[in-house]
C-alpha cells in the first residue's frame, strides 16, 4: 500500500476512532448516534439473524435494474444525440440543467402510471443516473480518434454495428465516469424512493427503524448500505484501473 493510501486510511480510521470516543464519553448521545463499534455489531446481528435478507435482496435487485437501465438507455441516448448534431444543439443545455430538476417531483406520476410496486423505484433510480451516462457517452464518443470511425467505415459497418464494435469499446474509459455516476445516482434514487414508497427494501427498513427510534437497527442498516456501495465503488475503481492500464491511458 502506498504512503498516500496509508495516510488516507489513517484519516478514516482516526475519524471513526474520534466518533467512537465521543459516543462512549456521552458527548454524542445514543439518541443521536451509536458508537461505530455498536453499528458494526448491529450489522453482524442483522445479517446473522437474516432479518434484512428479503429487504436487502429487494433493494439490490432494484439497484441492479436501475443501474442497467440507466447505463443502457444512457449509452443509447448518448450515441443518438452524438449522431444528430442538430438534436445535440437543442438538448445540450437541457442535459446541463437536468440535475437542477428535483427528479422526485415525478414520483406521484410514476406511481399513477406504474403502480405501487418496484417499477417506480427502478425508474426513479434510472432517471437519476441516465443523464450522467448520456453526457459521458457523448463526451466519450467526442474523444474517439477520428481514424477509428474511418476504420469502421472501411469495414463497411452500419451505425449500430459501429456503435457496438467501435464506439462502445473505444469510449469505455470515458464511459466509466458515467457508469460511476449511474451507480451512485441509482443507489440514491432507489433507496430514497424506498423511504417514500415504503413497500419493502432497505430504505423502508431504515425509515421504520428511524420512526421507531431504533437507532441500533437504523445505524446497522446504514452501515450495511454504506458497505455495499463502498464495495461497489471499489470494484468499479479496480476495473477502471485495470482497463486504463491495459489500454495505456493515464
Amino acid at each position, binding site marked *: 500500500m502506498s504512503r498516500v493510501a496509508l495516510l488516507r486510511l489513517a484519516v478514516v480510521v482516526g475519524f471513526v476512532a474520534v466518533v467512537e470516543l465521543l459516543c462512549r464519553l456521552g458527548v454524542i448521545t445514543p439518541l443521536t448516534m451509536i458508537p461505530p463499534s455498536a453499528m458494526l455489531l448491529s450489522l453482524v446481528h442483522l445479517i446473522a439473524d437474516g432479518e434484512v435478507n428479503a429487504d436487502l435482496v429487494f433493494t439490490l435487485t432494484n439497484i441492479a435494474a436501475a443501474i442497467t437501465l440507466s447505463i443502457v438507455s444512457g449509452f443509447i441516448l448518448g450515441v443518438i444525440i452524438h449522431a444528430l448534431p442538430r438534436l445535440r444543439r437543442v438538448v445540450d443545455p437541457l442535459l446541463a440543467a437536468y440535475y437542477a430538476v428535483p427528479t422526485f417531483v415525478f414520483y406521484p406520476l410514476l406511481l399513477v402510471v406504474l403502480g405501487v410496486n418496484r417499477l417506480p423505484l427502478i425508474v426513479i433510480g434510472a432517471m437519476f443516473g441516465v443523464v450522467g451516462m448520456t453526457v459521458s457517452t457523448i463526451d466519450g464518443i467526442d474523444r474517439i480518434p477520428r*481514424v477509428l470511425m*474511418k476504420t469502421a*467505415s*472501411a469495414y463497411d*459497418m452500419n451505425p449500430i454495428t459501429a456503435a457496438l464494435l*467501435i464506439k462502445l469499446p*473505444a469510449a469505455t474509459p470515458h464511459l466509466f465516469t458515467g457508469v460511476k455516476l449511474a451507480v451512485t445516482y441509482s443507489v440514491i434514487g432507489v433507496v430514497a424512493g424506498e423511504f417514500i414508497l415504503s413497500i419493502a427494501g432497505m430504505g423502508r427498513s431504515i425509515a421504520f427503524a428511524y420512526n421507531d427510534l431504533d437507532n441500533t437497527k437504523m445505524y446497522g442498516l446504514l452501515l450495511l448500505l454504506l458497505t455495499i456501495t463502498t464495495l461497489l465503488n471499489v470494484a468499479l475503481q479496480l476495473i477502471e484501473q485495470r482497463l486504463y492500464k491495459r*489500454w*495505456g491511458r493515464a
Partner: protein
Amino acid sequence: MMAVARPSEADVEPSAPIAGATLGAEGITHVFASAAGGPGVKALDNVDLTLARGEFFSVIGPSGCGKSTLLEIASGLMVPTEGQVSFEGNVLRGKVPDGIGIVFQEDASFAWLSVWDNVAFGLRRRSVDPAEIRRRVDYAVAFMGLQDFSQSYPAQLSGGMRQRVCIARTLVLQPRLILLDEPFGALDQQTRLLMGEEVLRLWRETGATVMLITHSLDEAAMLADRVGIMSARPGRFIETLSTGWPRERDSGIVADPRFGELTAAMWSLLRAESMRSMRRGGA
C-alpha cells in the same frame, strides 16, 4: 547491397496510361463545403489516375494538396464532387468494396483488443471459418514479425509495432489494392526505412496493387514503381515519374546514384508547389 538496375533518362518522363487497371479515377474534383455557407474549399481538381495490377504507386505533394482526400475517394470512403472512381471495373459509390484495404497515418489499432484479436477483427466480421481465421491471422502476425506480441495490447507496443498491427489487420483480408495514407508519418527515419522494407516485402509476396501517400521524397522514390507528383491545392497531378526499380528491392537502393537523381527530379517539380502551399499557410 542488392544490385539495382539503373533506369534510363526516359524513366523520369511522364508515363503512359497502363492497361489492366486495378483502380481508375477519372476527372476527380472535390470541393469541401464551407461551414459558413461560402464557396467551399476545392481540394482536388480534375484528377485522373490509373493503377495497373500489381503496381506500387506513390503520391507526393505539398501539405494540404488533397493527397489524403484522393486516397479516401480512391478507397470509396468519400464520394467526389465530380468524376468517378472504379475498382476492378466497378464504380465506387461511397462504400469500401471487398478487395481494398486501407492503412491510415494515425494509430488505428483497437486498444481494447490484443494484437491477435486486432488482426482477426475483419475476418470475424466476415464470419470466416475459425480454423481459417487462425491460419490466416497466425500467418499475418508472423509476417509482420509480431508473433512474440500476439497476446499483447497495443498500449504495450511501440508506434512502429502498432502500425505493423494495422498493416497485418489489412493484410489478413487479402486485399488486392492496399491504400497507405502516410503510414510511417509518425515514425523515426530508421524505423521508416525498415517499415518501408516490410511494405515492399508485403507488396512482392501478396502481388497486391499499392498506393502510398507520403510527404517523404525518399520514401516515395525508394518504394514506388511510379511516383505521382501533385500540385498545391487544388491538387492535380503535375507529373508522374517512373522509378524503374526492379521488383526485388530494399532500402539499400538509397545508396544508388539513381536514387539521388530521382529525388532531385521530384524536388525540382515540387519546390514551386510547396512554396505556393506555404504562402497559403498550407504547410
